[in-house]
């Protein structure tokens, strides 16, 4: 199964983590780097499934009456898209793939704190995904990824329980990964690597891990309640038995809003790495950026009610959640300003990862600012549950997280595989992705404000123009996703061999060979320097007479 480079060139003592080739060496590995790759294979598989569902949805929406799919099939497809993308792609993407691979390397450790738990996390992820996919094959689920009661508990088909079980199992994967990261960061940092010398990526992984560990159990309880309600008709959410359907929404968003930050925080960490590396500059305002990550993680727990301004909750709850939602925007703004300031007087180059990082800052900012519109209670009354919301969260999830993931993958690809990919192709893919993304989702803001409701299989004709634009954009976006698959696969065989530090970056992961040796560091690193210790501009060759 292993198409990765052979180690013919290298003497045996330089054997790296990819040297063993048996299936067993992969399936029973406890090496964080291999587990990161296992997660990569997993999320690519789920991403393909989620993308196929999205493609069907977008194609169906080209005509107002929805000719391609039946209403029932359409509903199953957007449910599939949401469930798979949220739980089996976005949430594990950066933490479980890049985090697993890079975190121990960044802090000078030989592995995570609990390597076997780490492997268990992958198995739970795959089993959870398998159960979820079985639910699709066995009849499909049409509740949307939100599983709102009483539709999910009383009216939708019984596969809901199977799908919920898959997500439940996958939740334990999240919890174990989070636990592992927290303890790894606390206990395994190399001597001298103090908290304020950690790369920002570690800070954001830490903040993410806190959310994973604290929020996921609430989701687990909620899913259990849904299953119990379906099997035994307990009536927690069923109004006919005195239950409260809104209670479901409170619990759901108590998990799912922090989950948004699970999906975006690690992306912010990646971008901090990329901006500093390709601007050759220390991060501006390091303690503020680090603190902002933790602030986002904490405040993120207090804003769930902004999903419910029109649900029937009291208007005073609406005020509080609106206010807190405005507060959570501040640390995000702080990050954006600090990244911008980092570019000031840098020495900026534009390799592929940097293009993704710049794209991220722009799209994340747009996504965040449209979030301010949604946090405005009175405007939300109009745009809630319309394509405006769909556009907003795709700006964060795709424009933000997917771009950060792609940037990070391109950045660490030489480290992961020991090979370079063709940078020109990479830049092209980044630009195509950026254009395709905006063409897909910008029109959705407009049609959302016009009143186009989300989750509609058929729609009034006046929205068709925007749907066609959006579908056209999605095809371009698809090309942007496909290009990296091609040149990454190509690079495995034909790519130039990567040196230990192809980007001339700082950080401990660049001090070991590419690909790294099995146990990362022969000797635990000492004499740790401050993070992003790039040459100060006061010294040549970065100055010129002013």
């Amino acid at each position, binding site marked *: 199964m292993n198409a990765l480079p052979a180690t013919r060139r290298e003497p045996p003592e330089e054997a790296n983590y990819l040297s063993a080739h048996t299936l067993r060496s992969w399936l029973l590995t406890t090496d964080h780097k291999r587990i990161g790759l296992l997660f990569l294979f997993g999320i690519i598989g789920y991403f393909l499934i989620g993308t196929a569902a999205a493609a069907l949805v977008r194609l169906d929406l080209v005509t107002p009456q929805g000719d391609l799919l039946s*209403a029932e099939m359409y509903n199953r497809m957007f449910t599939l898209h949401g469930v798979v993308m949220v739980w089996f792609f976005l949430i594990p993407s950066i933490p479980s793939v890049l985090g697993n691979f890079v975190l121990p390397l960044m802090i000078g450790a030989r592995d995570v704190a609990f390597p076997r738990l780490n492997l268990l996390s992958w198995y739970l992820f795959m089993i959870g995904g398998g159960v979820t996919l079985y639910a699709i094959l066995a009849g499909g689920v049409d*509740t*949307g990824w*939100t599983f709102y009661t*009483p*539709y999910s508990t*009383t009216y939708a088909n019984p596969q809901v329980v199977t799908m919920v079980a898959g997500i439940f199992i996958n939740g334990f994967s999240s919890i174990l990964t989070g636990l592992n990261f927290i303890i790894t960061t606390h206990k395994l940092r190399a001597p001298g690597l103090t908290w304020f010398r950690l790369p920002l990526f570690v800070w954001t992984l830490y903040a993410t891990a806190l959310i994973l560990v604290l929020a996921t159990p609430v989701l687990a309880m909620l899913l259990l309640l849904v299953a119990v309600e379906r099997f035994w008709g307990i009536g927690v959410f069923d*109004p006919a038995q*005195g239950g*409260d*359907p*809104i209670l479901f929404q409170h619990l759901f968003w108590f998990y799912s809003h922090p989950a948004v930050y699970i999906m975006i925080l690690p992306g912010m960490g990646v971008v901090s790495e990329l901006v500093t590396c390709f601007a*050759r500059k220390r991060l501006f*305002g390091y303690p503020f950026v680090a603190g902002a990550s933790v602030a986002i993680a904490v405040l993120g727990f207090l804003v769930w009610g902004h999903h419910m301004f*029109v649900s029937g909750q009291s*208007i005073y709850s609406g*005020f509080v959640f*609106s*206010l807190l939602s*405005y507060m959570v*925007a501040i640390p995000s*703004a702080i990050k954006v*300003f600090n990244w*911008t300031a980092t*570019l000031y*007087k*840098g*020495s*900026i*180059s*534009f390799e592929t990862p940097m293009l993704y990082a710049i794209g991220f*800052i*722009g799209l994340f*900012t*747009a996504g965040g600012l449209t979030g*301010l*519109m949604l*946090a*405005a*209670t*009175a*405007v939300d*009354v109009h745009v809630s*549950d*319309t394509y405006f919301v769909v556009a907003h969260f795709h700006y964060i999830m795709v424009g933000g997280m997917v771009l950060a993931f792609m940037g990070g993958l391109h950045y660490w690809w030489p480290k992961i595989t020991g090979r370079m990919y063709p940078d020109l192709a990479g830049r092209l893919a980044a630009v195509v992705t950026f254009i395709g993304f905006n063409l897909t989702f910008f029109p959705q803001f*407009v049609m959302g*404000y*016009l*009143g186009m*409701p*989300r*989750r*509609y299989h*058929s729609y009034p004709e*006046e929205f*068709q*123009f*925007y749907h066609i634009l959006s579908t056209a954009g999605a095809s371009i976006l698809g090309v942007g996703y496909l290009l990296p698959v091609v040149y990454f696969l190509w690079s495995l065989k034909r790519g130039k061999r990567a040196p230990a530090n192809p980007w001339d970056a700082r950080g401990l992961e660049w001090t070991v060979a590419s690909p790294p040796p099995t146990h990362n560091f022969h000797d635990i690193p000492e004499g740790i320097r401050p993070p992003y210790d790039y040459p100060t501009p006061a010294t040549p060759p970065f*100055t*010129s007479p002013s």
Partner: protein
Amino acid sequence: MKFPLLPDQASLGAGEVDRLMLLLLGVTVFFLLVTAGPILVFCFRYRRGNRVNRVLDPRGGFRLELTWTLIPLTIALGLFGASAAVYFRQRHPPEDAIEIHVIGRQWMWKVQHPQGKREINELHLPAGVPIKLLMTSQDVIHSFFIPAFRMKQDVLPGWLTTQWFVPTKTGSFPLFCAEYCGTDHSRMVGHVTVMPRPEYVQWLTTGVQEESPALAGERRFRQLGCSGCHVGQSAVRAPALNGVFGSVVPLQGGRTVIADERYLRDSILLPNKEIVDGYAPMMPSYQGQISEEELLALVAYLKSLGAGSAGNAPGVAAPVFAPASRQEGGAP
């Protein structure tokens, strides 16, 4: 092919929401400019290889952090206040609003006007009069959404929710279900037709004439035997209901509650939830015996019992809503 940019503005509140949106759009453009602008300039000016001065002044970092924390914070607080004020008005219907009942079910909207006239997936309204919708669902959660009014409210089973607006523009506007409710969610659509008041009155009085909800409620009130305890001299066993709507009700344990629609509905279905101070919890639950429509009718009847009227006088609830007199009277 059409590509409209803004939906119709057909209610008093619509312009207000659009102005708020415009303000937010301004803030968005401002922040995009103050981030994208410098990013592009820096990327160009400080591109690698360009010979420029890169010597940094190490001072002023903290002041900068403070600036770009406090300015966004101030703007955010301002935006919060501006939207909260509009939201507050959106959620507080005036006392004299015409009350129309809406029941959502998979996959249709059933509407009943105060005189009793019914329609499905259509909502006819008079222009220039405040309208309040009293809504509930028979099955799953729906959401009653009229983009031209910039108004939306979820419609829940087991709950009464409301929304209100003053239609200003005559014409036909789309009506959507905005909360996903199953297979034919996207077919749960219809039209809102806004007419000049006289035409609305005429429309109301043509076609099949049905009993008004308040009258139907009164009939049901007697059929179910509610009057046995709640009316006249018998009110020692149960609280009298004249003028109960909108009053402050003292509860056992010292709490008080405002008798709104939610309270009236809960008291019929879950009578032991909130027991009026001084009375024994002896009322049986009517859960499962009354349909959502009948519940709305009972609530309409109870609301029609003004403080001065006698609950046992038959027919007293009849003219809750006399369209002609209302139009001469209170409309803005």
